């Protein structure tokens, strides 16, 4: 039986190995991700989400390749699909996913973390930026998921989310902003440099929250004027921008990588020029901002790109986007003091508030030119120009459209609301020769959120490019 012992040993060794396999406590530890944290400070999320949201909304995507084209601030020089209203589904899907699963979700986590960490300033900043983002997208898509959105982390939550009527979204955002502006406490813990917009200053954030309410309230001027007026008055009373120093602006950095997205997209091969509509408008007004909005062409002149055209002109004959807006360290203005003054001018004109509409109008132009560094003498000359003289809503519409250069989503929204200036589609336009009134929903929503989408589409009477959103009806 001499073979017996090794056999028993082997069996024992096998048993030992078996127990080692089954009881390897190191297994679970091995699965801890050494590369990425599972918990981070809301400050880091806020920095990233702010940059991501502003870059997407006001950089090369939504701004430069869609809304600023349709508002006829910019023009595509060679590959002109978007300029001619050919909206590609991947573009739409990219923005939809990019906002919801990107900054909106991150801002949402900032709000929750601010609450649980007892940092109301951080919580309120999260609410303001989340609201700003929602406002940009509801103005583009109309009805959007809002009340049921961003619930993915809730255990057992559905994989779908219903769409809310745009009116409900507006009411919700106005109420959220009203709540947030009251939470800011200058004596509380501040965020600091992680806040790329105000360096964590609660007083400025409060003004921004109220100014956004002003913007949203005015957008309701046709759809729900009574609610708009009430919201406008409440926001104004709570304190809005009072100087250019209050402007909500993200300034990019000339370090080669954190450059302005327009600079990034144009540095290799310029694709965009300034639109002929705004070039010609500024020329007609002898507006000193022309040289800031546009660079001279190879011939030393200002010449715009005809909107929605496919003509094979020499690219060197088209004025490129002005250095102020296209340099590496260019600013992106989320909202300016000038816009707040225009909003008040319009409110005065509409009788929503008491005030001198003409004076507010002139103050708005002045504030904007000061912001751009226009010489004071040129401002005076401009205001004296009879073509600039105040003549009611059309004047506000035109001047505000000029002022919103660099903020495509807002310029496009205000053109849709007011109809000023009177923009016409270019010669080679698709979409039956009409400038679109909204974005279409991503096709993928049909598969992933079909019932909710269907309900939203029928509620809005269709969601094609020519179906207006609620406040534009």
């Amino acid at each position, binding site marked *: *039986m001499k073979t017996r012992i*090794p*056999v028993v*040993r*082997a*069996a024992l*060794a*096998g*048993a030992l190995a*078996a*127990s*080692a*396999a*089954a009881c*390897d406590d*190191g*297994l*679970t530890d*091995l*699965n*801890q991700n050494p*590369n*990425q944290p*599972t918990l981070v400070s809301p400050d*880091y*999320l806020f920095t*990233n989400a702010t*940059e991501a949201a502003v870059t997407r909304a006001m950089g090369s995507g939504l701004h430069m390749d869609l809304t600023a084209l349709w508002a006829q601030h910019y023009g595509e020089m*060679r590959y002109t699909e978007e300029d001619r209203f050919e909206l590609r589904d*991947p573009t739409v899907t990219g923005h*939809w*996913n990019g*906002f*919801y*699963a990107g900054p*909106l*979700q991150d801002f*949402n986590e900032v709000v929750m973390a601010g609450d649980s960490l007892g940092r109301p300033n951080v919580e309120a900043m999260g609410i303001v930026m989340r609201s700003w983002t929602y406002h940009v997208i509801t103005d583009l898509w109309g009805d959007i*998921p809002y009340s049921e959105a*961003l*619930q*993915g982390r809730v255990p057992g939550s559905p*994989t*779908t989310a219903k769409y809310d009527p745009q009116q409900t979204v507006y009411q919700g955002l106005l109420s959220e902003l009203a709540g947030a502006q009251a939470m800011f406490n200058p004596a509380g813990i501040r965020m600091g440099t*992680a806040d790329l917009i105000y360096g964590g200053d609660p007083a400025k954030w409060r003004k921004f929250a109220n100014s956004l309410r002003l913007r949203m309230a005015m957008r309701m001027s046709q759809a729900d004027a009574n609610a708009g007026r009430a919201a406008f008055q409440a926001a104004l009373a709570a304190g809005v921008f009072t100087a250019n120093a209050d402007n909500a602006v993200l300034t990019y950095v000339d370090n*080669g*990588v*954190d450059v302005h997205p327009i600079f990034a997209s144009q*540095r*290799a*091969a310029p694709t965009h020029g300034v639109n002929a509509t705004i070039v010609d408008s500024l020329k007609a007004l002898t507006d000193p901002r022309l040289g800031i909005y546009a660079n001279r062409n*190879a011939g030393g002149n200002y010449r715009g790109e005809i909107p929605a055209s496919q003509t*094979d002109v*020499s*690219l*060197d004959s088209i004025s490129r986007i002005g250095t102020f807006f296209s340099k590496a360290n260019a600013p992106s203005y989320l909202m300016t003091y000038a816009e707040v003054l225009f909003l008040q001018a319009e409110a005065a004109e509409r009788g929503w508030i008491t005030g001198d509409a003409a004076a507010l109008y002139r103050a708005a132009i002045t504030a904007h030119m000061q912001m751009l560094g226009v010489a004071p003498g040129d401002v005076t000359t401009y205001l004296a120009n009879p073509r600039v003289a105040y003549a009611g809503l059309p004047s506000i519409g035109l001047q505000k459209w000029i002022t919103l250069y660099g903020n495509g989503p807002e310029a496009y929204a205000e053109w849709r609301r007011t109809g000023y200036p009177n923009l016409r589609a270019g010669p080679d336009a698709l979409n039956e020769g009409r400038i679109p009134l909204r974005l279409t929903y991503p*096709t993928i929503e*049909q*598969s*992933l959120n079909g019932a909710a989408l269907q309900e939203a589409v029928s509620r809005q009477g269709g969601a094609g490019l020519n179906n207006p959103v609620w406040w534009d009806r």
Partner: protein
Amino acid sequence: MRKLGWLLAFLALLTGAARPAAAQGTGTIQGTVTDAESGPVQGARVTVDGTSIGAATGADGRFVLRGVPAGRRTVRAAMLGYATAQRTVAVTDGGTATASFTLSAAGVLMDEVVVTALGITREEREISTAVQEVSGEDLERAGETNLVSALSGKVSGVTITNSNTPGGSARIVIRGANSITNDNQPLFIVDGVPVTNSQGGGGTVGYNAIDYGNVVQDLNPADIESITVLKGPNAAALYGSRAANGAVIITTKSGRGGGGGTVTASSSVTFERPLRLPDYQNSYGQGFGGRYGYVNGRGGGINDDVDESWGPRLDNDTSVVQFFSNGQPAPWVSNPNNVRNFFETGRTANTSAAFSYAQDAANMRLSVARLDQDGTYPGFGLTRTTVGFNGGADLNDRLRANASVQYVATDAENRPAQGYGTDNVMWQFLWFGRQVDTGLLQERLRNADGSQYNWNSRWNNNPYWTATVNRNWDTRDRVIGNAAVSYELASWLTGTVRSGTDWFEENRKRTYEAGTIGDSDVDPSGAFGEANVFSRETNSDFLLTATLPARGAWNLGGHFGGNRRDNLSRTNSLYTRGLAVPGVFDANNAAVTPQLEDWREERRVNSLYGMATASWNETWFVEATARNDWSSTLPEGGNSYFYPSVASNLIFTQLVDVPFLSYGKVRASWSEVGNDTEPYQLLDPYSADAPFAGIPRYTGSNLLRNLQLRPERTRSMEIGTELRGLDNRLGLEVTYYRERTRDQIIPVQTTAATGFTARMLNAGTVSNRGVELSLDATPLRLANGLEWTVQANYTRNRSNVDALYGDLKTLVLGTYYNVSVEARVGDPYGVMYGRKYAYDSQGRMVLTSAGLPVTNGPIQRLGKYDPDWTGGLGSSLSFRGVQLSALVDMRQGGNLYSLTNAYGTRSGVLARTLRGRETRPDTLQGNGIVMEGVTVTAAGDTVPHRRRVTAQQYHRSLTNIAEEFVYDASFVKLREVRLQYAVPARLTGRMGVSGLEVAVIGRNLALWTDVPNVDPETAFNAGNVQGFEYSQFPSARSWGFSLSVTP
């Protein structure tokens, strides 16, 4: 499941303790193997049934088998090209029995010994699942440097998609894709130890990516004894999770020869040219609307930035200012071979030498090989040096040790970039002025000031700048090795302990010279990127093998073993888009903050497994396996999973006489395999972005992780038969299988409105069923030595996505340029969706008011990437040392979306864009095309519409109509042709060598397909998104010579 481990261990204990060891010792069997005509047979494998004992014969044909358990033993001698012989001898304790064999040559192999799971060699007759073997000789003869490609057409049930670039990836899938989003490629095993076949370069679908190749191609085909393909979970259940996609078992050559050493050497040289280039037009040059005039190449002239060929007519006695003409008009003439001339004649030289030595108790083999490759791409070069060792020794009667190690060093430079992007020269030739003289671009390359000399200055680099000024290098050092010790614990029980590792370290660098244009990630000062990748897999296992003494007609046996697998991978990379001093590609010279990546990943799987076998009278075989895994990637408490398999076969010709049949087997098996997931899928991570102006930042994941993941399950069954007859001149093997993978761990897409675009869930079921058929025949065999053989393989697989999650109907695997590849419920896996032409209810084409076709409505199904069937047909004619063989590879069905066609049509470079430009040279753009159809009014009515459009308008309007560029990807390829001559012994003797073989070889010599302009066999990566072609690098047609000498 933790209890189960104990249970198995207890069972093992029981079998050891409860069964009284038979009071018997061991003896020795010795003998010779000879060929009736030519004398001793060297290298025949002699094995003892029911044991793992075996040896190879020496040059004198002799063998010795020690430690054979006493009793009546069946001994077999097998050798390629001969019918296996068997005889039964009585072995007594301490005695020596003699068994000598005389083999007779056979056109068809019977009872071949096959290496199966865990390295257990078994006779073909014992095997109840579908396996197929390819000999090393067949691989070497393929004249192919990528092992996966060399299997093309040789094995049924296997779909191989070859790479187009030299050194690129070849994709292999056995029996269709099972997993919705995970790797569907089989597990590769070298000498019993798993090795990685990951693809270098990561996701190479994208922009400008380089395909660094699948890493199994590191192995030198000349070192390979055999490859066994285990075609599905049934055969591979013992290998566990990763073998759910089947397994490819590679056995390297071991030492042979008796009482001394032998040396063999072989060398081959082949030359490559592009197999197929797009059919370009040569009637119209660069420009737009028929107009062109160069000023600065940046849009300063007339369309001089336009990289399309809608310009003026060529060869029309006109002169135009061009990029080389210094502002003066120059003749506007065609350059029909400007693309063809860009490609060089490639050269591949492969040299290997091996020293092999064997004595009774020890054997070893040492080999060295060197591969030198200069592809068709200018500047490309690849070298691969392989050193291999394989040795074993009987340390005493009971103890045997084996070790093998392969060291592989690969160096490559200037691999061509793939995909749709400016670094891919084929993309550049799509966005091209057809009149451009590439010879001039090569000749001048740089201007006097060192800047780029180019035909345009806006989008495209000079192709020679891309290929030879912007450079890339990569090196990979790899070691694959294992050591094993086996000890005979008892006459009926052997224990083996083995440990093996596969690790490699890879460095990749890619540089962009100052002055490179058209790339938004490269500053004018130049850029560079560098990556270091380390990968290591270590497997340690033990295996107990029991062979119980025969009881009457019954033979029983079993295996019990355990394995621990550890994977570690690390990647560090850096990219900087701008340099302080141009031309210095060093991290410290970065002008801007570089992007960094740093990733480390670890995983461990512990396993226990067992197999029990029983056979009756060498006629009926039954086996059952069980395996339990514990994986680090699954949640604690839920990380253990068990899976079994059973299989049986019957050699029915042993029971009944069937006319014409000498051998007939039916087999059936059933199995289940569990699978884990990737590391770190349980908790949501935050990922860092580079600090913004120095301020750190993080963002949440778009994928919601899941702490409740369960293992995936693949269940499969197969039935098959193997038949031989007509004096072994006809053999047929047929298998039918069904597989179903459920509870798949997949990122289920959700509306982004939830804050996440996907959630990790156990969801989704995919099933595959199919038929595999292989046939071999010897239609002609004459006494004078003339022989003609034919081999055929056929594979038909049907996949179906049975379910995803809840109401979810589709899961998008990838969307690229107007086409998405999806897993849709009720459809085969990998269906392609995109837009089609719009027609009205009467079938008339809907046009815009401008007369151009449109797409309407939702995306529709355009096709699927999986073929209906694939096949290989090989034939060989031999006569007195001369052999002529050929292999044809076929693929029927499946679709391809071709971006070469879509964008070559848009840009006007392809010959098809001459439609509408054929006549009227007096006009700028030819005669145009009359479009007839309908337009749709605002009210939705259709109104007939007829309008003449220009060729440019028409062809450019097709780009987004994906339907136009989806093709039936069927093809037939003449894969291999070989004419070889083995110099007869009487001549070699005079030359002082014992063996000499010369051959002429050709590979990928001809292609027949309906797909225009490209090779439909295209894989720019080895992932699940297939069926796309993006400005493909032309695959190579090669021919050359080989020589092999045995001194």
